[in-house]
């Protein structure tokens, strides 16, 4: 239960981090909060030759509101998303309001336990890409954009392309996930999140996030997003279930119908935490409850 030997470098600038990643390539692993990587190293499931610690780099832990997005720096710890603030275009830092401002704390409280939330980072969770991780589900459901830096370049990766399979992302070895853009949902959106785990703080067996946009004139749903974790190697969207919602007015029957389609749309594998049939049942329940929560009704 001790990690294998590794060389260690803790640059104090992004440029030096990118140089180190460029030099060491896939021998290197980025260390952010370490709450996912270090357990894997202690189990020796991960044996990086070189650890590039980004804990001393400035400029990676900001949250700012720009062009309808909240940009979350990779090193923002989970605990800060329990009461999110954002630097506004005029430079003031304000509590983040609105639908996203309510959703983030709702999700953050499910991320590990308090000491994990004090060290673990948003970007670390996204780059680790556990298919049941709350932030990965959120990123996929809201179509977040990941900002990847490399020496001399930058690219933006859509969430749909970012998560490839279990613990595997589109990031190249020489790239650093620097920030994530989350769309600030307008006041016509309703979002909910529901998770089932056997003990508080555990990874979800199944978790669901929903976001629906309401037509202000009719109250009917004009756009719907349903994302689920714990049923595949990556967090998945459920387009058939989403489609059943469009044109409908939110309510228990509409939610139940969408949840039924969602349960049929996933193809989970069974493991010791739950059989395939059990996970399918959980998808039905979590989707219905997330929709109800978003609509302001008890699940």
């Amino acid at each position, binding site marked *: *239960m*001790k*990690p*294998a*030997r*590794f*060389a*260690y*470098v*803790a*640059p*104090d600038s992004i440029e*030096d981090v990118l*140089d*180190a990643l460029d*030099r060491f390539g896939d021998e290197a692993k980025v*260390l952010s909060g*370490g*709450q996912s990587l*270090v*357990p894997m190293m*202690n*189990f020796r499931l991960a044996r990086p*030759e*070189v*650890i590039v*610690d980004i*804990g001393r780099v400035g400029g990676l832990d900001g949250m700012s509101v720009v062009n309808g997005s909240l940009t979350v720096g990779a090193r923002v710890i989970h*605990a800060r998303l329990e009461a999110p603030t954002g630097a506004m275009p005029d430079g003031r830092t304000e509590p983040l309001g609105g639908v996203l401002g309510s959703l983030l704390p709702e999700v953050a*409280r499910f991320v590990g*336990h*308090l*000491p*994990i939330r*004090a*060290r673990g980072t948003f970007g670390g969770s996204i780059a680790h890409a556990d298919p049941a991780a709350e932030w990965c589900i959120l990123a996929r459901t809201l179509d977040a954009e990941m900002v990847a830096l490399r020496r001399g370049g930058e690219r933006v990766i859509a969430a749909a392309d970012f998560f490839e399979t279990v613990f595997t992302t589109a990031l190249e070895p020489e790239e650093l996930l620097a920030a994530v853009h989350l769309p600030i949902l307008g006041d016509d959106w309703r979002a909910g999140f529901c998770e089932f785990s056997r*003990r*508080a*703080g555990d990874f979800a067996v199944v978790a669901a996030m929903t976001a629906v946009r309401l037509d202000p004139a009719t109250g009917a749903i004009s756009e719907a997003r349903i994302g689920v974790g714990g049923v595949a190697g990556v967090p998945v969207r459920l387009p058939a279930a989403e489609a059943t919602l469009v044109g409908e007015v939110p309510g228990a029957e509409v939610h139940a119908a969408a949840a039924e389609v969602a349960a049929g749309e996933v193809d989970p594998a069974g493991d010791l935490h739950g059989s395939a049939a059990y996970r399918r049942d959980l998808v039905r329940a979590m989707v219905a409850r997330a929709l109800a929560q978003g609509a302001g009704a008890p699940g």
Partner: protein
Amino acid sequence: MTEISPADEAVPVVLRVNGTDRRIAAEPRRTLADALREDCGLTGTHLGCEHGVCGACTVLLDGEPVRSCLLFAVQAQGAEIRTVEGLADDDGTLHPLQEAFWRHHGLQCGFCTPGFLMLSAGVLETRPDIGDEELREALSSNLCRCTGYQTIVEAVRSVRDAAGA
């Protein structure tokens, strides 16, 4: 290019523990928990699972409870670290949390106790008016195989209530 510490060499590390600078030599892979126990002789910090689940190794890092098995000693340089050895006064007077764990039977075998004490100290110092539900949720961070938790919750709640009275 920033200096690289080779894998097989102990590098000088300065840890500020309970207000005292400790100068040690540690390989990069040395966890803070092992550095505290093996290099600083502070064996009050216990190691249970060594993968961040049990919380026995909880210490305060700049005031926040963290798992010292999920942190390398080299990362903790420059931070204020507090361990269970720093709770009681120099004359042996127990910290109010230690008194309360004793009075409320918040421990039996005692293995998880240092972690629970540091978790509780961090929680009450940063959130002195924490509600009952949140307190239970915070205490769910650590594992205890003896008490059934109720007496631990009662101990910490009594310290919170006494401080707020």
